[in-house]
């Protein structure tokens, strides 16, 4: 694309793109994310492309390999626009029929529509399927409307309008105020207000300032950030550039996973496109604002997602959290003020700038606004990437969207936040999705990985799994975390194998107390959280293992004496 030197030029180009497109032309979006890919959709995409050519429909029907469409359980998923039909479990053999249906506006193909598992009734429209019906797919919904490798597509749906507005119609202070007033809270775990963090970095002295995208997503069961980033890389980039403007940063870092080839390809292409179009680099859109980004990869350890460890890693050092008592927003990368937000937080920024504070604050609860991406996994019937309004009850998420528990089992608990999160029992499922409410119950939202736990899962064994995970994924620098988890794991191994002794629970609690106060970084401080929540709600299960040598869930292999 040619270099876009002014906001007027941007709108001109956008208009030209839209005019060249037939608004009635259909598009077939084929999910190309890992789940669907694993189900053989590489062949599906090829088959559709061949079919469009064979039927002579080039220019009339567009086939797009898109980012994640969310409904992983029913993959490969195909969404037809503008008719809004959703086909599930599509194979390469179905391509001819679907292409013909789309081109000729025929009746939807019954057998490929989603069938209600209880009534068997077929559902035609995407937004009538229970999985999609209760969602507010603000951030992730565009995945179905764009080819993630096309800047034109992003511009066609209004892309970079927020950046243009931020650069030409707003002062940096006004951008900051807008984000502060919106009460956008960090989506990566802590729920800290993003605007306040931005302000700290903006006001901190430093020759250079940095903005960073945390796309590490190392938490097992969390896959929503990569779904968004892979499917719509320009959205995250646009948010980052706007943030840089507000903060006064001239350089950004994107820290992301090394093991998602499609994410890397789409991200690198987006950066090239943005540089070529003058949306990144010097004199962005002719505004005089200079900003560019560097991409760094995590090399596979969980602790490097911790903010100071991540920044040490960006400097080429060991990803050990810094012992200093200075916030990274004041002194981070190269000891310069550095503002870190996760993928989803940045993605919200263009929406807030475009739609305003009232729109954003109008969604959710009093203190948790906007929408939230959730990756639903575990024993839910429908596993996938979900986006709901904050304040939605967990019941809606688990039972309606998630379709309840798979294989006829019963709901035992839901677990948020992976190895540093917590579980709440199934009977508390009316709780709303809210940072503070969930925090109070001991199951903070974390990044949004929601694990559905059925009644055949042992809570002791699950805690054991999380602790074992962290003994391998921490850095090992400080005593409470390294040694505390080592001994916690010893004790939990004993309990699970029927070797538990009276006093074990107390010893676990002592270790947890020391870890949560005396550990160096937030990983060690929150590592005992799954144990704490398990002891809060499921202590009887621990006692049964220790005193009766029984696993009530029938999950642990305890030898009967």
């Amino acid at each position, binding site marked *: 694309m040619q270099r876009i030197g002014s906001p007027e030029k941007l709108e001109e180009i956008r208009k030209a793109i839209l005019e060249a497109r037939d608004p009635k032309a259909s598009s077939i979006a084929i999910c190309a994310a890992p789940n669907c890919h694993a189900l053989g959709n590489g062949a599906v995409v090829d088959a559709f492309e061949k079919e469009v050519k064979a039927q002579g429909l080039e220019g009339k029907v567009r086939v797009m390999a898109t980012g994640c469409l969310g409904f992983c359980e029913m993959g490969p998923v195909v969404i037809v626009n503008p008719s809004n039909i959703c086909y599930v479990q599509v194979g390469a053999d179905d391509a001819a029929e679907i292409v013909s249906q789309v081109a000729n506006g025929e009746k939807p193909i019954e057998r490929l529509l989603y069938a209600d598992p209880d009534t068997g009734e077929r559902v035609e429209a995407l937004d009538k399927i229970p999985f999609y019906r209760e969602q507010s797919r603000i951030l992730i919904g565009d995945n179905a409307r764009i080819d993630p490798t096309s800047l034109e597509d992003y511009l066609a749906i209004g892309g970079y309008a927020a950046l243009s507005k931020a650069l030409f119609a707003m002062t940096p202070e006004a951008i900051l105020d807008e984000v502060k007033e919106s009460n956008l809270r960090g989506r990566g775990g802590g729920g800290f207000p993003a605007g306040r963090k931005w302000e700290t970095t903006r006001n901190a002295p430093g020759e250079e300032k940095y903005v960073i995208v945390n796309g590490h997503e190392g938490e097992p069961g969390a896959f929503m950030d990569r779904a968004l980033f892979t499917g719509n890389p320009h959205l995250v980039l646009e948010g980052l550039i706007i943030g840089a403007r507000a903060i006064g940063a001239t350089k950004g870092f994107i820290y992301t996973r090394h093991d998602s080839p499609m994410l890397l390809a789409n991200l690198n292409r987006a950066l090239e496109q943005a540089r070529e179009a003058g949306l990144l680099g010097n004199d962005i859109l002719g505004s005089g604002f200079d900003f560019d980004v560097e991409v760094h990869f995590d090399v596979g*350890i969980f*602790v490097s997602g911790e903010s100071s460890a991540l920044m040490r890693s960006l400097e080429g050092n060991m990803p050990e959290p810094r*012992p*200093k*008592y200075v916030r990274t927003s004041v002194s981070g990368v190269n000891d310069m003020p550095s503002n870190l937000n996760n993928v989803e937080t940045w993605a919200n920024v263009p929406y807030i700038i475009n739609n305003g504070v009232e729109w954003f604050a109008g969604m959710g609860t009093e203190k948790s606004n906007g929408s939230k991406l959730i990756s639903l996994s575990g024993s839910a019937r429908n596993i996938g990437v979900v986006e709901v309004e904050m304040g939605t009850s967990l019941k809606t998420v688990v039972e309606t969207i998630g379709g309840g528990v798979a294989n006829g089992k019963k709901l035992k608990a839901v677990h948020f936040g992976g190895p540093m999160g917590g579980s709440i029992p199934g009977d508390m499922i009316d709780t709303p999705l809210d940072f503070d409410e969930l925090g109070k119950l001991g199951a903070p939202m974390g990044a949004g990985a929601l694990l559905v736990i059925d009644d055949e899962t042992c809570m002791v064994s699950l805690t054991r799994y999380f602790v074992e995970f*962290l*003994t*391998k*994924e*921490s*850095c*090992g*620098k*400080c*005593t*409470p975390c*390294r*040694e*505390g*988890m*080592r*001994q916690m*794991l*010893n004790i939990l191994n004993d309990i699970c194998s029927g070797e538990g002794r009276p006093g074990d629970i107390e*010893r676990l609690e*002592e*270790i947890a*107390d*020391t870890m949560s*106060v*005396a*550990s*160096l970084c937030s990983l060690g401080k929150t590592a005992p959280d799954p144990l704490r929540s398990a002891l809060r709600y499921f202590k009887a299960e621990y006692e049964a293992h220790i005193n009766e040598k029984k696993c009530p869930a029938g999950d642990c292999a305890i030898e009967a004496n």
Partner: protein
Amino acid sequence: MSEVRLTIDGKEVAATEGMTLLEAARTVGVEIPTLCHHDKLEPYGGCRVCTVEVEAWGRTKYVVGCVYPVEADIVVRTRSEKIDQIRKTILELMLAHAPDSHDLAEMAKEYKADPEKYRRESSFCIHCGLCVRYCDEIKGKNAVTFVDQGASREISFIPEIAAKECWDCKECFPLCPTSALQAAYVLARSFEDVG
């Protein structure tokens, strides 16, 4: 350098800006226990034995004295029921590695730590990092380093460098609070002899 006034264990302290709590406490004769601290080395904050209580702006937090800088008007307590409990647990976790260490045994008496509380571990190392940091910061040789992560983390000599540098140095030996270092070094040598 400006003066910073704070309270440590009820004593008024006039410290210098940039001092750590550990240093400020020493000026008034308050000793905070440490294991990974060394006056010649950069603050490390690894062992967490020097955890103290800081009251500031109506809030109480727990920080490590070897790193936390002095701040005006804060109230620091170096002993309390909670701090003693934290130190006790940390010592018990370390004693699982090095039950015979003189330094640990002395502290264990003070904090009533039970050496048998947790399962005995095979390695003596308590990961204070004194040898690693001394070799890096003072000697500039980097003959010994940490390898691996999490619970598998351990110290290891780089045989090529160790063969050249260590025989005539050995300055890190007396720093080790558990004598694990010597074992590691001998191990590295024996590998070399075999290989």
